[in-house]
C-alpha cells in the first residue's frame, strides 16, 4: 500500500469551497429512503472518499469540472445549438427543432456527433496516412493545455489549476502552436483546396498572432504581472476591469480571437464556398467531427482568456444567500457565463458579416489591428505611469 495520506492531506487542505454541497448531501440526499442508504454506503468506502476529495481538490476541480473539461464538453454540445438557434432568429427562422421539439432541438449536436462516430472514415490514397490520422488528435493537446493556467476566480478566491509567474506567456506559446497542426492537417491531406486553405491559414496566423500578443502585452503592462492570479486580483471591481481600462486592447484581442478561430468575417482559411472547409476538406466521419469540435474548443479557450484578462474573470457582485451557499462555485459560474456571452457574440458574427478576402484580412491584421494594439500598449504605459 502506498501511503497517500500526505497527498490526501494536501488535497483536503485545498478543497474547493462549496458550502451548499454538504448540506445538500446530508440534508437531502441521505434522507431519501433507498438512494440515501446507497450514498451513505458509498461514502463509507475509503477509496470513494479519496476520489471525491480528489475531484474536489481545487486544481483538479477547476481543470475537470468548471471551467475545465466538463464545462467545455457541455459547451460543445450547447454552443452549436445556441449558435444555430440565435443565428436562426437573426435569419427569421427557428433553427434545429424537429428533433425533440420539447427541448427545442437541443440534442441536435448529440445526433450529429453520434452519426459522425458511426460513419466511415475515408483516407484517400493520395493522403499521408499517418499524419492525416494523427494530426486531428494531436491538435487536441495544445488546444486544451491553456486551460491549465486559467484563473476563474476572483480576488481572494483563486481558482487556477497551475499558478505560474509566466502563465500568460505560456498560454500564448501554447495557442501559437495550434496553427502548426492545422498546417500539418492541410499538408497531409494532399488536396488543392486543403493546400490553399493551409497557405491562407499560415498567412492569417502571422496576421492575428502579433496583434494578439500585443493585446496581451498591453494588459501585462497594465497589470504589471503575467501571473493569472495577479491579473485577476488587479481587476478589483467592474470599473477597473481590463475592458474599461484599456478597451482598445480588448477590441484588438477580440478581433484577433475571431481571426484565430477563423470565424466570420475572417473565415478565410476554411471559406466554405471558396475552399470547402480548406484544410479539413478530406476529413470524414469522426475525424471531421473532431475538426469541427476543435474550432469550438479553441474559441472557448480564447474566450476564457478574454474573460480573465478583460472581464475580471469570476468577479462580480455577491448575491445574498446565493453567494455564500455556492462559495467558489458562484465565481466559477460567473466566469462561465461571461465566457459564454463572449462566445455567443463571436459565433453570431456569422449572421452579421460576410467574409473578408485574404489580402483584406491580412491588411486588417497587419494594419488596423497592429496599430490598435500598439496604441493599446502605449495607453497601458500611460495608465501605468498615471496610476
Amino acid at each position: 500500500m502506498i501511503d497517500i495520506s500526505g497527498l490526501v492531506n494536501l488535497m483536503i487542505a485545498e478543497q474547493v469551497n462549496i458550502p451548499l454541497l454538504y448540506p445538500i448531501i446530508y440534508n437531502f440526499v441521505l434522507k431519501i429512503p433507498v438512494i440515501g442508504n446507497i450514498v451513505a454506503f458509498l461514502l463509507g468506502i475509503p477509496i470513494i472518499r479519496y476520489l471525491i476529495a480528489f475531484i474536489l481538490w481545487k486544481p483538479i476541480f477547476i481543470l475537470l469540472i468548471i471551467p475545465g473539461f466538463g464545462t467545455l464538453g457541455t459547451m460543445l454540445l450547447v454552443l452549436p445549438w445556441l449558435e444555430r438557434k440565435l443565428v436562426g432568429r437573426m435569419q427569421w427562422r427557428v433553427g434545429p427543432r424537429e428533433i425533440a421539439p420539447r427541448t427545442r432541438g437541443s440534442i441536435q449536436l448529440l445526433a450529429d456527433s453520434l452519426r459522425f462516430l458511426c460513419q466511415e472514415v475515408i483516407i484517400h490514397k493520395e493522403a499521408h496516412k499517418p499524419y492525416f490520422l494523427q494530426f486531428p488528435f494531436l491538435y487536441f493537446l495544445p488546444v486544451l493545455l491553456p486551460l491549465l493556467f486559467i484563473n476563474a476566480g476572483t480576488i481572494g478566491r483563486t481558482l487556477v489549476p497551475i499558478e505560474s509567474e509566466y502563465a500568460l506567456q505560456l498560454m500564448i506559446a501554447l495557442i501559437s502552436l495550434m496553427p502548426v497542426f492545422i498546417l500539418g492537417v492541410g499538408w497531409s491531406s494532399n488536396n488543392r483546396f486543403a493546400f490553399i486553405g493551409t497557405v491562407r491559414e499560415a498567412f492569417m496566423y502571422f496576421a492575428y498572432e502579433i496583434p494578439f500578443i500585443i493585446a496581451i502585452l498591453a494588459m501585462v503592462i497594465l497589470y504589471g504581472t503575467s501571473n493569472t492570479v495577479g491579473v485577476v486580483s488587479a481587476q478589483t471591481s467592474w470599473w477597473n476591469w481590463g475592458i474599461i481600462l484599456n478597451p482598445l486592447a480588448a477590441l484588438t484581442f477580440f478581433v484577433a480571437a475571431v481571426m484565430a478561430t477563423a470565424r466570420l468575417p475572417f473565415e478565410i482559411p476554411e471559406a466554405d464556398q471558396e475552399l470547402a472547409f480548406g484544410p479539413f476538406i478530406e476529413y470524414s466521419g469522426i475525424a471531421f467531427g473532431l475538426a469541427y469540435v476543435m474550432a469550438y474548443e479553441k474559441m472557448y479557450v480564447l474566450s476564457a482568456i478574454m474573460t480573465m484578462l478583460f472581464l475580471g474573470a469570476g468577479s462580480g457582485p455577491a448575491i445574498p444567500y446565493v453567494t455564500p451557499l455556492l462559495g467558489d462555485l458562484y465565481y466559477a459560474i460567473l466566469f462561465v457565463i461571461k465566457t459564454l456571452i463572449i462566445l455567443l457574440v463571436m459565433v453570431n458574427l456569422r449572421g452579421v458579416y460576410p467574409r473578408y478576402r485574404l489580402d483584406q484580412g491580412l491588411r486588417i491584421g497587419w494594419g488596423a489591428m497592429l496599430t490598435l494594439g500598439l496604441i493599446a500598449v502605449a495607453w497601458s504605459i500611460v495608465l501605468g505611469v498615471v496610476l
Partner: protein
Amino acid sequence: MKKVGTPEYNLQDKLKYHLSALSTAAKQVALPLNITTHYPRERRRWPDCFRGYILFDPERCISCFQCSFICPANAIWMKEAPSNRYYPTLDYGKCIFCHFCVDSCPGGALKPTKIHDVAYRTMEEMLTLTEEMVEPPEIIREDKVFVDYVIDTEDLSLKRTKGRDNLIVEIAPSQGVPMVSQCVDRASCIACKVCEKVCESGAVSSIKDEERLIVKMAIDAEKCTGCGLCVKECSMQILRLVRK
C-alpha cells in the same frame, strides 16, 4: 436614366454601417420577423388554383386524347377502357404540373387538387393508372395547423389556424364549347371508315349497300361529343368541327 454609383466609405461610414448591421442583427434576435412554417406539423394553405395532383372523372371524359396530345412531357398515355374508350393514365415521373391537360379537357373530366407533397420508393409506383385517379388519394398528413400568408401594406405575416386544410378543391368543371363534326367535301370521301373506327361515341356510322354499290355515311349530331378525333384522322381531311 438613373445612375447608380458605388459608395466610398470613410472611417465614420464604416463605423456607422458596422453598427447598423450589428444592431439589425441584434434587433432580429430580440424581435424576429420570423416567417417559418414547420412543415410536417403545419402546412401552408395554397390557393385553390394550386396545380397539384390530378383527379379524373370518367363520367365527363369524352376520350378525345387532347390531354395526351397537349402534355409537353408526354406523361399522359391513354389506356383502353370499356366501351371503346381510352382513359388517361398519368406518370408522375414525368408530369410537370403545367395543367395544360386540365385546361384542355373539353368536358372537365380532369380536376386539379392541392396534393403535392409525395415521395415514391420506386419509379414504377409513379405511374398512376386510370382506376387510381378517380377517387382522391390518401396522403400522410402530420399537420394539425394550417398557415396562411397574410400580406398587408405593412408586412408579410403568418396566420395560423387549427385544423386541416382540405386538399380537394371543388371547382366547377368547364363546360367547354359544344362542337360537332361535319363533312365539308362529301364527294371526296372514300368511305374508308377511319372516322367510324376512331369514334368512341358511335356517332359515325356507315352502312354498306352491296347492291347499289354505295356506302351510306352518317354523323349523328346528337351522339357526337365533338372530340375531333375523326377530323384529325380523316385520311382525306374533309371533316371539320363546327359549333353545335
